[in-house]
């Protein structure tokens, strides 16, 4: 065999994307609970190691761990916007990490994938931001503040519907 074989794992720029998202989440979490921040940082580190070694399972574990940190913050009565942004941050870190692993496996680290990866992460961040704002507006602030049970019922409904739709 001759020719340059590609290395099937993500490159360094993938680490930056997930790292930044995770770090932002940790900062938000720190507003409520320092233990939580520590857990989120740990989770982000696990995500990054999963990206570096191109292992989906490790990225998943890291993402869950990072969210556990957010739970800590929420339970420590951190302000709702911080919790929501931190949630979005952990999801983006995990999503960008998973995407990076798939890119690494399909295209290798020699391919220049910085732009599509950043775009993907930005799209994810946007989704999180929009839903966070919507949630805050609809359920927290203003005239449409809803009782917790209503929120809960709607939430459950939406989750069930989407899970049913899940491809």
């Amino acid at each position, binding site marked *: 065999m001759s020719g340059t074989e590609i290395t099937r794992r993500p490159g360094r720029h993938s680490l930056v994307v997930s790292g930044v998202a995770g770090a932002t989440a940790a900062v938000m979490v720190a507003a409520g609970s320092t233990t939580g921040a520590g857990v989120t940082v740990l989770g982000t580190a696990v995500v990054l190691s999963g990206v570096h070694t191109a292992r989906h399972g490790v990225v998943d574990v890291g993402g869950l761990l990072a969210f556990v940190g957010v739970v800590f913050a929420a339970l420590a009565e951190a302000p709702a916007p911080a919790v929501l942004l931190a949630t979005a941050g952990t999801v983006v870190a995990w999503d960008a990490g998973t995407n990076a692993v798939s890119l690494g496996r399909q295209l290798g680290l020699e391919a220049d994938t910085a732009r599509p990866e950043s775009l993907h992460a930005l799209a994810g961040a946007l989704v999180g931001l929009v*839903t966070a704002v919507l949630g805050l507006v609809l359920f927290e602030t203003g005239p449409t503040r809803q009782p*917790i049970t209503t929120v809960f019922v709607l939430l459950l409904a939406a989750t069930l519907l989407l899970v049913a739709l899940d491809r």
Partner: protein
Amino acid sequence: MTEDDTPRSDGGRSVDTTTAEADAVEADAATAAAAGADAPDAETGGADGVDAGVRPAESNATDAFARDEPSVEEDAEPGRRETPTPGGDSAEARADSEPAASTGPVTTTVRSATLRSTNHWVGFATLAFLAGGLGVALRSRSLLLAAVVGVGYLAYANVTEAPEPRLAVERTLSTERPEPGDTVEVRVVVENVGETVLPDLRIVEQVPEALAVTDGPARTATALRPGARMTFTYSVLARRGAYEFDGLTVMARNASGSRERECDLSTEPISITCLAPIDATAAVPLRGLTSPYTGRVSTDTSGEGTEFASLREYQHGDALSRIDWNSYARDGTLATMEFREERMATVVVVLDLRGAAYLQAGEDGLHAVDRGIDATRRIFNSLLDTGDRVGLAAFASESVWLAPGAGATHQARARDLLSTHPALSPTPPDERVYVRWQLRRLHQRLDDDAQVVFVSPVPDDTSTLVARSLQVRGHPVTVVSPDATLRDTPGHTLAAIERSNRLNDLRGSGVRVVDWAGDERLGEALERARRRWSG
């Protein structure tokens, strides 16, 4: 070789890229006058404009194979053709990336497509359930809201579908006729000619199997709005033979990455044709290759091709019809006329194209079949020049046979066969070659007095069997064997020894052998062998 030998899947002539088949959308079609005349067509709207988007090049005098394929497949979808026309806004983008006289990206056709769920977001609902459950149980409002964010992501993941990519691709090579060992840069321009955004597009080039990529992966990832294009480049190492770039694989995902559509796209083919540097003396010294075996064609008819050559002294047993009665009448001496046809030998050059013959001495050596084809070409031409009738045959996955003949048309036919016949490929055949059956057929086709030049690296006993079988049936055989062996490792050395033994065996059976070493010119090898035969 002439310039018309580039193998093209559409069987057409090489497209002369200097007469540009200008992209109909280029407002400034400064490239060719012919194309310029068509620009007004492109700008008129309506039914004409629809066709003009792809057709103007076709009306050029030069063949527009670049346009033929897409127009045939696109008949069912005229709508697609309209998108290149209003390309004014992407023209600036094009001005930067396009070389002056190029044809522009051509819409690809989909050979196959697979849609699948990546399972990227499977199990993500964990977040919503976890946050929701804990939020309820511990009465934390912010956790419930976090669950809302999770639901938002679920919607993002599950609601969209992977787009169908509609792409136009243009591939340009830095040179289409490199020398072996040169680096050729391949530049690929991909344009989104559909109406949907392609948020996550991953592209892998289908590089011809025999070519190695030396610089940069032949893959890329991008996001393309409708009308946007992107370019990527990579380099391949040129190698003897003709190789065609005709497709790429594309994976289009939706924005969230939950669905992926993998498509095998067929693009306009472009080839690299690499011929080894021609020897200074293209003619090959063939003295001794055939003369001792001059065939005696006993023709009593003085038909075409029999031309009086010379007189010689009458020998007992010569045909009476050959006696030159004029000289007998003149001075009573008996002389026999010799006709040109008698001097001509009939030679068939037989190529070994079985899978076993595809061997290469190390990673950089020319491979045995390429050398064999080169030798065949030179020997064929040289034999024709010395007046022999030459034919071609091969042991290959497909039938290769050109009956012995002479003349310019015959030579052209042979040249054509040697450059475009699919059996003479740079890569080994997939199918088995049935040697016994082909050998039998060869025996049937050969004239009784035909000589054979068998070109084979002699990798196994089958090749010696073939040579001996032909020799035994009365066809004098000369084996021209490109040496693909090395002696750098024990295994290689043993194989080299085995080959030498086989060649010696053949010599023992009366077959003449030209052992053509890797770094030797064919002329030298033939000269060396000739000295051996006469010395």
